[in-house]
């Protein structure tokens, strides 16, 4: 539409029409002895015809008039004057000129139809391109940005799509905010359109002086936003192009509505699943809190109400029960708190550059008592880079994985930890020689409250989901599988995209000894 030409011919077209007439005259003059008058007339008519089809109405009428004049001047006696002897020549002049008019009208209509067909084709192509790009758009903001890009390409210098929120307020999607400069006046016009659901701005009756044209985006009666064309191409709002503009706007509106509906459906599913999650969390926690609590209460009252019947060994056993069960409760509560923090998105890692060895070392130290008698083989190659992690959270990943290994594998079976760094990734492998993970359960164990079929008891299955949550917060992954020869294997991957800071080597020499 931008490239559409108005129906006025340019000066070169007139020049070319003139050249055609001069050419015809030349040929006729050269063959003057051989040609009869009707041949000369035909020659001129040919020139008029060509001018009509090639150069448009103005040049063709000019060609007709010139043809009449030159024909009269050179070929109609008295020669070399514009006067005429016989009335029948006047008839020829009238026919020549009349034919020129008719043909040029016909030609003009033909050209116009061709032009319209071309515009229609362009419109169809533009709408097709728009709908194809809007098909897979994930959110309304992106749909708005894409629609604005297309509108700018088709209608004007630039464009923006403002989205209407639930409260009826218009806003520019964040992704487009920097690209499109909208003045307060532009926004005022857009707001008017938002409220009245009628086009306004340049080319309309409302705010005709504005530099923008605003078109409402509606589906049925529901307003969804406003399409703003900044410095629109002339004629965009003219009645003959309105239809296309409206179809364009409707298509954008449909796309926005589709995305909005999909977003709402997704939010509803999420709400439902998080509610069911919460209730199963509650029932799991209350069960897991009650059993150690029952043991503590039982042991405590037995000691308090003892009337001297308990022996030293029995007393020690009851005291031991209280301590271990209290520790179990503490672990559970800590896990639940971590899980809640992950779920609520409140776990922003506080990254620092740390050696993997240190994080692993503090995890092993924290589990010193739990790991009594276990062989833990660590294989960390020298020269591992510093890794950008939250040391407290990352330690928790190892603590949970190691506790898990201790819980599910035979008492004396070894645990192996190794790490390898490629250029862009750190892979940590933690493997045991226990019964392994049942086939098909490799993903399920990372879901909340999965405790494994063969669980020895104790603790809601929150350890692995917490590991996954922490890894995700770090932009990494954790997966589980079985290793050849039996046993489970956990693989942690952490992207290493940033360059670790360098620590200047210390000049050796004055050593302390």
């Amino acid at each position, binding site marked *: 539409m931008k490239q559409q030409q108005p129906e006025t011919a340019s000066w070169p077209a007139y020049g070319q029409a003139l050249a055609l007439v001069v050419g015809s005259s030349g040929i006729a003059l050269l063959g003057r002895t051989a040609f009869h008058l009707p041949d000369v007339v035909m020659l001129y008519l040919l020139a008029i015809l060509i001018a009509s089809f090639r150069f448009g109405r103005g040049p063709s009428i000019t060609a007709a008039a010139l043809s009449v004049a030159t024909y009269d001047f050179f070929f109609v006696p008295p020669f070399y004057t514009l006067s005429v002897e016989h009335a029948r020549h006047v008839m020829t002049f009238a026919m020549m000129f009349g034919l020129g008019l008719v043909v040029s009208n016909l030609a003009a209509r033909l050209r116009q139809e061709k032009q319209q067909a071309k515009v229609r084709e362009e419109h169809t192509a533009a709408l097709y391109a728009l709908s194809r790009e809007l098909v897979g758009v994930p959110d309304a903001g992106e749909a708005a940005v894409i629609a604005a890009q297309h509108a700018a390409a088709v209608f004007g210098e630039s464009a923006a799509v403002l989205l209407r929120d639930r409260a009826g307020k218009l806003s520019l999607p964040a992704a487009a905010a920097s690209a499109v400069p909208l003045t307060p006046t532009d926004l005022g016009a857009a707001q008017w359109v938002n409220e009245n659901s009628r086009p306004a701005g340049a080319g309309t009756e409302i705010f005709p002086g504005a530099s923008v044209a605003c078109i409402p985006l509606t589906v049925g009666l529901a307003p969804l936003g406003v399409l703003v064309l900044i410095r629109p191409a002339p004629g965009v709002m003219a009645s003959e192009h309105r239809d296309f503009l409206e179809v364009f706007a409707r298509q954008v509106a449909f796309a926005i509505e589709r995305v909005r509906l999909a977003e709402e459906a997704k939010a509803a599913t999420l709400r439902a699943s998080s509610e069911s999650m919460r209730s199963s969390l509650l029932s799991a926690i209350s069960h897991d809190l009650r059993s150690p609590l029952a043991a503590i209460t039982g042991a405590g009252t037995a000691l308090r109400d003892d009337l001297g019947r308990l022996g030293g060994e029995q007393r020690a056993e009851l005291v031991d029960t209280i301590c271990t069960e209290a520790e179990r409760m*503490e672990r559970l509560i800590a896990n639940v708190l971590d899980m809640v923090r992950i779920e609520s998105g409140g776990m922003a890692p506080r990254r620092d550059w740390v*050696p993997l060895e*240190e994080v692993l070392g503090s995890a*092993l*130290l924290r589990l010193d008592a739990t790991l009594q008698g276990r062989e833990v083989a660590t294989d960390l190659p020298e020269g591992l880079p510093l890794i950008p992690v939250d040391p407290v959270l990352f330690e928790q990943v190892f603590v949970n994985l190691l506790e898990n290994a201790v819980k599910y594998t035979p008492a004396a079976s070894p645990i192996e930890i190794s790490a390898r760094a490629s250029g862009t990734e750190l892979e940590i492998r933690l493997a045991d020689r226990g019964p392994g993970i049942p086939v098909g359960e490799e993903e399920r164990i990372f879901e909340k409250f999965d405790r494994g079929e063969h669980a020895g008891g104790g603790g809601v299955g929150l350890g692995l989901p917490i590991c996954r949550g922490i890894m995700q917060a770090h932009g990494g992954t954790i997966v589980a599988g079985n290793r050849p020869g039996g046993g489970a294997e956990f693989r942690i991957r952490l992207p290493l995209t940033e360059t670790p800071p360098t620590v200047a080597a210390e000049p050796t020499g004055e050593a302390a000894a």
Partner: protein
Amino acid sequence: MSEPGPVVLIVEDEPQLRRFLRTALGVQGYRLVEAETAHEGLIAATTHNPELILLDIGLPDGNGIDLTRRIREWSRVPIIVISARGKEDDKVTALDAGADDYLTKPFGVNELLARIRVALRHAQSSAAGPGEPVLEIGPLRLDLTRREVLVSGTQIHLTPLEYRLLALLAQNAGKVLTHRQILKEVWGPGSVNETHYLRVFMAQLRRKIEPDPARPRLLLTEPGVGYRMRES
């Protein structure tokens, strides 16, 4: 108990925890003064002149960190703060504000007594002037006058920074030092935020003096807080 034990001020709003501390410390011969709020704690600290303060960071009338700062304006009495898990920031702030150590709730009685012993010992030795010239911690022997380091009888060569780092931790054995405190002492006040320096040198040091650097027994990490040399 022939002579009266040290006076310990407990600033703690939870009656159950106060009862536990009273019982656990009373048996050991400590004399106890109790306060329930930061305000009471400040008054008790000035009137009873305690030899050690156990201070809960979360108090109903303000936080223990402010109280630590107030007390540090005029006293060097050892302060051990009590804090919850997951509040590493609070611990670091309290330590940097002048607290000597921390305990994470829930804690066992052995841990409590060990921390109190270390804090009291450090208070005494710093009052007595320069400490022992030779420190022995497990297999480690550090001769401060000769700048000599031995592990299980074998001499170890350290760079100047590694030596300063080891000496600082060994002189404060049993006590936690924050990253900031160590960086300031070893690298200087301009480097207090360069924790990765410290971490890299700590890894080097562990490789030289720990039999298994991935399972350190002497140079312990306090995640998110700092480091602690094992108590001899």
